[in-house]
């Protein structure tokens, strides 16, 4: 079971779990804050809407198209 870090907090997930799912398993499910200050969560689930973009190991990635790997550092965008 890979262990990821969501904004620094560790979380063990089943193999193959998407980062989008991990956000809901380990936190409130939100991925970013919009330009007018609303919290947002994954919407389309298939790499189109970009609502689920987070920082993963320093790169901006889509949570719905990224599979959790051991040691991954995920930061939701404030």
């Amino acid at each position, binding site marked *: 079971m890979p262990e990821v870090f969501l904004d620094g907090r560790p979380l063990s997930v*089943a193999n*193959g779990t998407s980062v989008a799912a991990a956000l*809901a398993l380990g936190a409130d499910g939100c991925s970013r804050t919009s330009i007018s200050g609303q919290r947002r969560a994954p919407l*389309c689930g298939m790499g189109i*809407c970009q609502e689920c973009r987070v920082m993963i190991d320093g790169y901006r990635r889509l949570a719905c198209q990224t599979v959790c790997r051991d040691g991954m550092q995920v930061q939701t965008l404030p």
Partner: protein
Amino acid sequence: MNEITDLLIIGAGPAGMAAALAAAPSGARIVLLDDNPLPGGQIWRDGPQANLPGKARRLRDQLRACANVRCHAGTRVIACATDKTLLVEDAERGWQITYDRLILCTGARELLLPFPGWTLPGVTGAGGLQALIKGGLPVRGERLVIAGSGPLLLASAATAKQHGAQVLRIAEQASRANVLGFATQLPRWPGKFFQSFSLFDHHYRTDTHVLEALGRERLEGVRLQQQGKTIELACDRLACGFGLIPNTQLGQVLGCALEGRALAVDAWQATSRREHYAAGECTGFGGSELALVEGAIAGHAAVGHTAAAQRLWSRRARWQGFAQALNKAFALDARLKTLARADTLVCRCEDVSYGELAGHENWREAKLASRCGMGACQGRVCGAALEHLFGWTTPTPRPPFSPARIGSLLSLEETPPT
């Protein structure tokens, strides 16, 4: 590292997989590219909570066994570098792929229409929720409302129930007469007929559509217009999708003509541009069976096996009939154009409201005045919504086609492949 291939296939859903498998016996060098972590597309998306059908597993195993098919997962097309050369990017690097022939299997996305509250966490697409659950999203014990249009609502509900969710309502905007008319035609496609029994749910209501998602910080309930009455349901998630629209952007950039909202193809699945083919949902919504046969035709045709392609025409015609019946039955009611209020956000990337857009003549004017469509999704969500709401046409996209790293763009300067 740049790559040269005989046949490049963009999209590894049913159409792309079938295309690769049909073309592989020719011995051509084939590259199959997809932006998801695994092949299968949306319908056969794998994950810790996915139950892949046997057919999907078989196709995946067959692909793995083809020594001349190279699969690039998690890879997006960023730009056209030169003629028949695309710049692509995965999580680590950017590189160029030069091809002789191309098959576009870019699929479809959900039409997401704005309504008050649709930006609240807890609101997703209908197919979106299904994809998220397959990837491990926990829904056990949650109260769900699924709304919008089309058979995807039932499929999404079935996946949610399998994983312990309580589906309170499936709200289908189409009329009872339309849905019944469609259902009575289903025996023409026996597989679909039996599938419909397994998916049917007694919380299904026709003539019912979403009015508003309720809640402050996240979703707490939903207001529906249900067969003439307004009702409210407390719930944890709302999954709302108004059917599927073809992903035509890359095809348009490559100069392939459109027919309606889809990429235009002939009997060989060839587009208007020579040596460029298209198959599956990007040529019009029709389901995985149609995508599989179209993909196979395109794969055979692209390697010159015309007789093998032609043998599949009758099967394609059968599934085209299904697609026509489906699209007619679930046509969207005009009432769905009136859900947004002045303060409802339409562009979720730049937070542009309906009121800021409604007075404009066209997409370009609205965009220049408001930044609508200029955010990370590049108008894929709001552009499609505004096409539906106002009849605006959105222009052919310009590169980069999706957010990309500077390092990948810099690789355009490198020596082209020889």
